[in-house]
């Protein structure tokens, strides 16, 4: 009786297309690209701010227009998806037990969304008004 195990190859780059759960995972990961680029744009904005009024004005002008709006819309969608998935996994990474009872994951997630609302309001007050 001879053993000759057979190794099935899988695509190193395209494996994630084979199942919806993997596609959702990849979307979650790609959200970091939009968030990272947005953060870099903010950094450039602060840099231009530090260079004076004219530099800042030209930076602001360059972010307007259809391309900027399109990026912002996409970044918004991915940022919200990041928030959604991040909150979803938090109860798994940090399960909470209060007075002997395990706090349901849904409660932890809801508390996070509440915190999100508060944080967003704070950002609005500080930056936007």
């Amino acid at each position, binding site marked *: 009786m001879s053993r000759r195990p*057979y190794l099935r190859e899988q695509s190193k780059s395209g494996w994630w297309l084979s199942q919806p759960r*993997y596609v959702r995972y990849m979307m979650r*990961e790609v959200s970091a690209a939009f968030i990272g680029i947005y953060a870099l744009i903010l950094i450039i904005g602060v840099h231009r701010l530090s260079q004076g009024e004219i530099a800042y004005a030209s930076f602001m002008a360059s972010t307007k227009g259809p391309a900027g709006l399109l990026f912002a819309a996409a970044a918004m969608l991915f940022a919200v998806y990041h928030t959604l998935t991040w909150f979803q996994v938090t109860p798994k990474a940090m399960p909470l037990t209060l007075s*002997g009872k395990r706090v349901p994951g849904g409660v932890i997630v809801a508390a996070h969304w509440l915190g999100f609302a508060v944080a967003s309001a704070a950002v609005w007050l500080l930056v936007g008004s």
Partner: protein
Amino acid sequence: MSDRTIELEILRYDPEQDDAPHFQTYTVPCQEDWVVLDAINFVKENLDRTLSYRWSCHMAVCGSCGMALNGEPALACHAFVRDYPERIRIEPLQNFPIERDLVVVMDDFMEKLAAVRPYVIAAEEKDVEDGEHLQTPAELARYKQYTACINCLLCYSACPQYGLNDSFIGPAALALAHRYNLDSRDVGRSAREDVVASNPGIWECSFVGACSEVCPKSVDPAAAIQQTKIASSGDYFMKFLMPWKRK
């Protein structure tokens, strides 16, 4: 619901004759309460006695009958035919070499399981005469969920990181390490660290979460690994801040 005729498309591989695996189709009259394992057993008994596969308990506690049903890792004894269309594609678990037909080579997992030292490492060895280790219900509740693993390997099959890098210790082994790390009778976290907190250990995991989705016993290995990442990070920073402390 009534009896249905189901086509099973099963991946066959005979190491003594075949160069590569190939599909073979069988037509099986299925009773309405059958699981896929019943259909496979029908094939073996009535249509093709050369078909090889693992199974034992037929009640989702032994972990033997893991296979991919229409691409999804599942226990054949736990998958009801009524939940499937008229054609079911049956393949051995992905990410493992095929030994023969639906039998996969499990050696890699067995080594990794042993490597995480899946047993209580007590502070002092106790003789049986000295009595039991005592544990409260609350202490048991901390790790009980992670004791449910039946080593069925569905999680390894679903894990894309294991597929991309087979040096990854993997969900089940890491969940079991977590089970012992959480056990109040155990002081072995630092002993397991070398394997668990290594690069091919928890740090290979990118929290895809597929492992927990396919687990038939709700072990939630993904959660176990993330909790271990936090605990390990804590240990790591404590080593710098308070090097005199040991667990």
